[in-house]
């Protein structure tokens, strides 16, 4: 073999071997380190709706829980769950009568009623307020117990409640409720505050908690 050809072969073989050796390195470079801390974008490309849950405990350990779930993901996954009373995205309730109150009738009544305060209880231990305001059902409970003072605020769009009760009798349609929720604007759904914990459930277009 001529020197020129031998040199070419050697160089080609060397280049190929070097590339081969580099492949795992390249693959590794493409794979972010388990400890990598690239920051996710705050707003998703298309306007996805995200459900956020945040629990902050003020005890010595300072426990914090943050959950971010895309609503569309929840909508797609819920029908796949078939367990106990949950089937096809609908949850069975034995009877829509809770404590002798027909929930469906109550929802119908609230839907057709005008905005206003429906229930206002001011007791020595609890304050309760149930109201309809700007097409939202608002529930406010203040527990004035001496040991553990807590405050619960729930604000749910009426369309979501309608969707929840849109399934057949004795069923709650969770998927329909999530779908209705995705059409709602940024809103704080649940807020619970007591001496030890703060819980917040809200909806927005960001894929990270603040």
């Amino acid at each position, binding site marked *: 073999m001529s020197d020129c050809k031998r040199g070419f072969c050697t160089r080609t073989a060397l280049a190929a071997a070097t590339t081969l050796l580099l*492949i795992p390195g390249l693959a590794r470079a493409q794979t972010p380190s388990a400890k990598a801390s690239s920051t996710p974008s705050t707003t998703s490309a298309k306007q996805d709706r995200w459900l956020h849950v945040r629990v902050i405990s003020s005890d010595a350990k300072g426990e914090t829980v943050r959950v971010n779930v895309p609503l569309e993901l929840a909508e797609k996954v819920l029908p796949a769950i078939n367990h106990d009373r949950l089937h096809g995205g609908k949850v069975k309730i034995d009877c829509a009568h809770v404590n002798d109150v027909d929930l469906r009738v109550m929802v119908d009544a609230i839907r057709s009623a005008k905005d206003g305060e429906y229930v206002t209880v001011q007791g020595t231990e609890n304050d309760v307020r149930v109201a309809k305001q700007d097409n939202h059902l608002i529930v406010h409970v203040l527990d004035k117990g001496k040991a553990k003072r807590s405050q619960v605020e729930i604000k749910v769009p009426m369309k979501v409640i309608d969707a929840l009760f849109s399934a057949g009798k004795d069923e709650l349609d969770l998927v329909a409720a999530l779908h209705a929720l995705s059409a709602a604007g940024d809103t704080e759904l649940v807020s619970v505050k007591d001496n030890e914990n703060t819980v917040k459930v809200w909806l927005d277009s960001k894929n*990270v908690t603040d």
Partner: protein
Amino acid sequence: MILLAKAALGVTGTLFVAGAYTFHEGVIRIDVDEHRAGGSHVHVWVPAAAVPMAMHLVPQKQLREAVEHSREALPIAHAIVKELKKYPDVDLVEVVDGKQHVQIRTRNGKLQIDVEAPDEQVHLLVPLSTLEDVTRQLEDSAPRA
């Protein structure tokens, strides 16, 4: 000499193509470090593309048993993974409890689970496409009703 060079080039080329294919889906990375006496330290890097291929080698009986045990969870896992692929990097769950820190998130099309505690650290990195392949294969191997 030319023959030898050609053979070397052929082998190298084959290895190159095989290597490129094996790593094209990235790697599955498992790191476990237990910081205590006798604690184990496991560091595994597996080419993600090898896992669905390796599943074809698992005996059907064992595969069916695995499917039986995870019958309820498989469709859910498959649906979650399939949907997660559509989203950019997401911090799904984060729990901080004292010195313990758990994070479940997606990064560059991979599911990343990090657990950090004073006595142990676990880091898991799995491409979502591999998880989807595996869950689909397991679902396919379930006995038809």
